[in-house]
């Protein structure tokens, strides 16, 4: 299971945080800080796996991360997930974002917070991987976006 998905930038500023297991809020903040601390001091040409931090579970947990330009995508998973599989999943997620936002950038994550969450929901649901096929994900997201737009259009004349 995926326990948490953390996305933060090179300065450790969280951009998207999703916990699939309950943690108190201050603990969440600590986890983010610790994870950033662990991940940020690593070179780009080293491997993408880290034995988990002390806070988010013990030895069964692994941090699997990828670093893109200004963002770190960190997935915290337990041993039931395949390391390379998750790496691929991160890639799929990022590529999906790129497809949906055209040349995706860190600020997209803030600006289109809602949409990013939708996309993530199509990829991971409740800590389990829902879909790994990018085309499928993009298709679902697009249909939803279209729906949303038509809803806005419908509501506009009345509002």
């Amino acid at each position, binding site marked *: 299971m995926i326990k948490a998905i953390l996305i933060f930038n090179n300065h450790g500023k969280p951009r998207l945080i999703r916990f699939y297991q309950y943690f108190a809020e201050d603990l969440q903040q600590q986890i983010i800080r610790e994870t950033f601390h662990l991940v940020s001091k690593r070179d780009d040409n080293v491997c993408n796996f880290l034995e988990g931090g002390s806070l988010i579970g013990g030895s069964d947990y692994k941090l699997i991360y990828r670093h893109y330009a200004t963002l770190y995508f960190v997935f915290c998973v337990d041993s039931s997930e395949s390391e*390379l599989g998750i790496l691929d999943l991160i890639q799929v997620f990022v590529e999906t974002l790129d497809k949906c936002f055209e040349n995706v950038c860190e600020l997209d994550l803030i600006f289109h917070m809602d949409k990013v969450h939708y996309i993530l929901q199509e990829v991971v649901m409740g800590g*389990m991987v829902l879909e790994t096929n990018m085309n499928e994900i993009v298709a679902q997201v697009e249909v939803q976006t279209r729906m949303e737009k038509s809803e*806005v259009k419908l509501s506009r004349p009345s509002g």
Partner: protein
Amino acid sequence: MALKIVKGSIDRMFDKNLQDLVRGIRNHKEDEAKYISTCIDEIKQELKQDNIAVKANAVCKLTYLQMLGYDVSWAAFNIVEVMSSSKFTYKVKIGLYAHVWICQEIGYISQYDTGVALTGLSCFVTPDLARDLANDIMTLMSHTKPYIRKKAVLIMYKVFLKYPESLRPAFPRLKEKLEDPDPGVQSAAVNVICELARRNPKNYLSLAPLFFKLMTSSTNNWVLIKIIKLFGALTPLEPRLGKKLIEPLTNLIHSTSAMSLLYECVNTVIAGHDVNGSPFLPPFSLALFLFLRFQLCVQKLRILIEDSDQNLKYLGLLAMSKILKTHPKSVQSHKDLILQCLDDKDESIRLRALDLLYGMVSKKNLMEIVKKLMLHVDKAEGTTYRDELLTKIIDICSQSNYQYITNFEWYISILVELTRLEGTRHGHLIASQMLDVAIRVKAIRVFAVAQMATLLDNAHLMTGNVQRKGICEVLYAAAWICGEFSEHLENPMQTLEAMLRPKVATLPGHIQAVYVQNAAKLFATLLKNQEGNTDRTAAQETSQLMIDRLPLFVQSANLEVQERASCILQLVKYIQKLQQKDVEVAEEVIALFAGELNPVAPKAQKKVPVPEGLDLDAWINEPPSESESEDEQPKAIFAKEEPKHSRARHTEVDEKELAKRREARKQEQANNPFYIKASPSSQKVYQEAPGVEHIPVVQIDLSVPLKVPGLPMSDQYVKLEEERRQKERVEKKKKEKKKRKEKRGGRGKKHDSGPESEEDITPAHMVDIVTEEMPLADSEKLPVRSHRAAEALKSPAEDGDAESPASQEPKKKSSKEKREKKKDKDGDRKVSVKNGNPTRETALWMYIYGAEIDIQGNLQDGSQVVVSVIFENKCDNFLKTMEFNVLDSLNSKLQRPEGSGPHDGLSVPFQLPPGVSNEARFVFTMQSIVMPQKLKGTLTFIIKNEDSSTHEKLDFKLHFTCSSYLITTPCYSDAFAKLLESGDLKCSSVRLEGVNMPFHHLLARICFHHHFSVVERIDSCASMYSRSIQGHHVCLLVKTSGQTVSIDAKCDEPTLLGNVLDEIKQTFSQC
């Protein structure tokens, strides 16, 4: 009564549920309205029932009817009633029902609603919800849309977790989903079963054949990985499975191109092998061999070897550590590879390699490996890794009781070498190893003592980093070993001196203590040696040395050191006395430390036979009974029992008595001038007091009887004062407004805000700063900051002066031209403001500013825009009696002084001599700011010559763009994120093609012309923010790639947003 209940329940049996209702509506296509009206009647009946379940059912149906467009407001109360029922599940159920049924009804589109409902549910499943919804979700699992099926299957896992009873009934269906035609659903089902199997693999053995089939048929790598992982969990339970798996797994290993899959295959192979314990099967050994040799890469993927992917390396090492547990030999042959990994720049990999080393050592290669590690220790950068290496070396050497160490002298020298490490935190570990080895390996003691003596001699090398609790710990061991085994010392006198150096006092207390104690031991040995000699002076000198040096330790701040030192000092003094009497004391002194320490095995205690007749479980004394102990508890040590009891009795005294006493006490207090009355009111006031500083503590003493001391009074004062101020402020404001109104058009605008409204001024500063910072090169030359929102005077003859308010650039240029022309005094095409009279060279220039200058006043109001106009006289004559007038529209009005009519002009409060310019401001009131506005206006004035005066008129247009309603407002990125998170904003976007300017120019342009501020910028992407005078938030995300600029925008007012975007588009379309 009973009959009624029975009747009710029978009735209910015939109640329609939501399903029936939908079915019914479908069946009554012709007379739908009629059918529904009967249904509504039924629902009304149901709502009158007492049973909440019936009501809930009715509300369910109502929700559906409302979705169809029927008015159900009459049932609002009942809906609220059901909603407020204690069972949250009803609500969710209602929601979900609505979704499900609409979904079936409308079909395609609403599957996302259900999807959202399910996703939402995944976040907050509770046991109750899980129980109530299990059935519904199970129905959804066979929904026609794979999208819903997929989500429903996944959510079942959460339901199982919270409500395990649902697993049994749901299982067949889940199993069914494994063969779902849709790969997404299939993968979801596999996911769920894998998670379940992780918890309890036994129950899922029966599914093995199915998975087997899936494994051979599926092409989805994710599914395959999951299945293989599942098999990894299943094989330990069913050995035959492992054998069966060989073939498909090897096939996969050979055929797949996905590293992730390959890795999982190999991993499972290893896991399966673990349990079977059988020797390597041929295909396995092949795979494994290659895998090990090339760090995970199998034949076909040999290309990747050169790639030397760090991730694969890491995983390869990880897998190897698994093999190591069962087949250390097969790993040991790859020692060179693993040692190579120690050189890797990646710490994760190095640590993994270290893990492997631990299991790889043998008696033969230990020294070699440790030698390599020692090299790495020297090379290693960063203390953490070095510490890790250090602990690993010690771990490796000391594992299973030093099993692999053949030469302890070597080990001791390694330990001594390790002490030379800078800044390690593991001094303690090394120390304990030294002690352990020296105590347990008798043969080594001579060597160890010699080494320790040199360590002590060179202690100054280590004392450098006392603070860091580091390596000086080693001295603890060194001192102890030298003391305890002092008979092996070659030069005990030197060691003793080393131990008693004054510098020792800087060491941590516990080490000093050991030093002192062992100095005594050493002293004893020395005495013994020296007393054998004929010359007694040597022994006496030694005593003298002790007596000289020990007082240093007696003064130590550490109690332990002090105690030992003073004890030993007295002893030595006594010995010295005896020595002076020529008494031989060595034997007796040595007796103090006689006896040898023997290592005790951890399990040694077990071997001691229990003496006969000793029953460890029997009570020595009868245990005190619990009731007794309770009674004993209150026993006071100091005989205070009596008063206590009496007091207890007092409390039992009847209530009346108590009340009486309380009353009496109150009376007493009331009459006591020195008692602060604790009336409820005063207490309340106390709590309400604004701050501690308002509590006049001193006044309590001075208080007059029966008067609540100053507190409430001061509070009142504060309140009064506040009220007064408030009043004043309001009045002032009124005055100011009046003043402003009077002064309107005058210059003093900026000064009229008094000190009270300081906060009003600040935003103005910010605005100014932001605007002035704009690095817009071409605008810098302009004397005016901007002129926009208002169309410059339009003269029909002026062809260059196009009427395009949003296009800033040409306007600027044209105005620049104007300026230049004016300077040249080139009369011909001078911009004349004479309307309808283009040939005449006159007269007046008018710049109209945007609204930002006085915007802070507008912020409070939200509807005021100030337009600054510069009038410049360009003719040779005197201009006077200028009157400014604008034709009001419904939405926007020029603010006129009180008493003047809606069509009256405003007189400009100055006259213009030739060549002079002046500025006037006009306030406009706007109702709505979401649309741009154009206002027509006229300026009338009189041109005065020496002899005559002519009346002139000038027509112009004021253009209020939407951008002019925006105020540059700085915004922090956190606040920005919060704002966007709220989800209240509507989104819109625009694309600009062929924009050829640097990104920062582009941003500056948006900031400058449209009053935005940059929140954050990352490379060629920036988020921007602005606020309208009415408080609308406008957020932009600007991105460029090549010549294309895409702007995503969000605002709570879509119309405003659309217009702002249009204006931005226009800004860039004209550059």
